[in-house]
């Protein structure tokens, strides 16, 4: 792995290196072009194969998709490559093969920035806020690519997550876990995305906060934005899902509607904890 080759030998000297905020993504290089590919679902990552840097492949021909007006949920064991698949759809890692299509265009060669411009919003699983920036600045950064007046969108986000309005001058890093997740989702909404991708938005939050977050996500979905979501709280997520994917070792193990998967005894036993 690349991290090994140029490793730091355990050095953590604060006078010479800044440990904060370093990225891990190996994104698609800027400069690629999209080309038309009509038909198919609204957003689809098809037969994706690839991994991080020079390491072994994590994804093996994995396909995930979401249609307009739907919620699609991805579940699966840890390390199955769910987050990796999401990142791949967003161009945060270079695919060896497979393609990503959005709204009738093949965007496989586009860099993440260009995908944002085409209306994709993504809330990663970890490190999904700018901790030292205020809540408001976090939202502004969400609107970075927008040239128009985004105050109205910000109002909408504040209406959706009222607590954020109270805390808008506070550094996001000082918020509690649940509030951070709201900031993260709010930031993604600021782009006014055509499709929203959420990677475990409820991870590590207490059951109470989780309920609240699910309610909000449903609300967003009701505004007509298709949602592609990874969830560990699989049973709860599949309840509200139109479509469900079970990913195992980088490939699709089961696919169906949320209800179907919940009803499948194999899936229940192996992935949903019985």
């Amino acid at each position, binding site marked *: 792995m*690349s991290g090994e080759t140029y490793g730091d030998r355990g050095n953590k000297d604060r006078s010479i290196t*800044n440990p*904060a*905020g370093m*990225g*891990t993504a190996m994104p698609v290089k800027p400069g690629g072009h999209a080309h038309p590919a009509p038909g198919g679902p609204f957003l689809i990552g098809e037969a994706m194969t690839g991994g991080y840097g020079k390491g072994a492949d994590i994804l093996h021909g994995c396909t995930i998709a979401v249609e307009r007006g739907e919620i699609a949920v991805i579940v699966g064991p840890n390390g199955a490559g769910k987050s990796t698949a999401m990142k791949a759809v967003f161009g945060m890692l270079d695919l060896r093969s497979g393609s990503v299509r959005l709204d009738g265009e093949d965007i496989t060669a586009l860099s993440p920035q260009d995908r944002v411009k085409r209306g994709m919003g993504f809330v990663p699983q970890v*490190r999904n806020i*700018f901790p030292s920036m205020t809540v408001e600045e976090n939202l502004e950064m969400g609107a970075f690519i927008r040239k128009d007046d985004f105050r109205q969108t910000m109002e909408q986000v504040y209406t959706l997550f009222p607590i954020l309005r109270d805390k808008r001058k506070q*550094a996001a890093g000082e918020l509690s876990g649940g509030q951070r997740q709201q900031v993260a989702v709010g930031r993604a909404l600021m782009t006014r995305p055509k499709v929203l991708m959420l990677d475990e938005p409820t991870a590590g939050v207490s059951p109470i906060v989780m309920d609240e977050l699910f309610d909000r996500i449903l609300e967003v979905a009701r505004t007509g934005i298709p949602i592609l979501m990874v969830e560990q709280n699989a049973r709860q997520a599949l309840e509200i899902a139109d479509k469900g994917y079970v990913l195992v070792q980088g490939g699709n193990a089961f696919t169906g509607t949320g209800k179907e998967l919940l009803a499948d005894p194999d899936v229940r036993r192996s992935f949903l904890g019985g």
Partner: protein
Amino acid sequence: MDFLNAFVALANFVIVPALAYGSQLALGALGVTLIYAILRFSNFAHGDTMAWGTMCAVLATWGLQAAGVSLGPLPTALLAIPVGIAGAAVLVLATDRVVYRFYRAQKAKPVILVIVSMGIMFVYNGLTRFVIGPDDQNFADGERFLISARDFKAMTGLDEGLAIKTTQALTVVVALITVSLLFWFLNRTRTGKSMRAYSDNEDLALLSGINPERVVTVTWLIVAALATIAGVLYGLDKSFKPFTYFQLLLPIFAAAIVGGIGNPLGAIAGGFVIAFSEVGITYAWKKFLTYFLPESMAPDGLVQLLSTDYKFAVSFVILVIVLLFRPTGLFKGQTI
């Protein structure tokens, strides 16, 4: 007892020089701190970047002087600063493209970049000397003093003089303007905010549509500007010599770290802390006290805490004490 003279003596030998020196260090430390915050490593080549930028400005100044251009009382070199900045920008951007970018793409740990910057330091060192040679170069012109010690004495009738050099005033003013501009830029503009976002969370910045390469480029451009401005002001106030610029690295680092590395406000504060401790603690207080105290109590000795040989030791000890009590420097918390 003569408070006025006491104060003037103190101002002349401690406050004014330390303010100017502090501003010079602060400008240097700003560059270091910006790279630390955004590119995440301490740039050992910063001193030599300053030397290169200044060298370009010196060459341009000579050209202007030869062409008969002058700024009247102000040094012509001010006009040459843009050329210097351009020169420095070309150098650092070329370096970034040829060297640093590769390691960024590899996700190399920041400490690797530190070591790489050592290599760059060696190379710049050679390059600057290759072009302009190792000698001392004087490129200051214009009015030397805002007010000279002699004029001050004549004006006020005091025994002590107070001299303020044009370059000293310029340094402080330019430092203030630069810092305000930088703050405005980082906190109010879109590009500035995107730089802070990148420094906070690189991956998320990417997800927000921020182009990381653009952030890096802008950072280098600002660093080139800061380095050149710092270098030219320093060179005007003292003189330009490549070796000295390498030597500046240590106090600059100390300043950045005392202040809280990664924090621009800290860089400013750190610059002044280092400068005032170097100049103040090794100052011989005899003259001041002779004026200040009643005659009967005038000191015999020099009343010097430490000989000037150890001036750097003093600032270093202060650095360690600050870090003991405030592990993240004077301005902890948010960086950039």
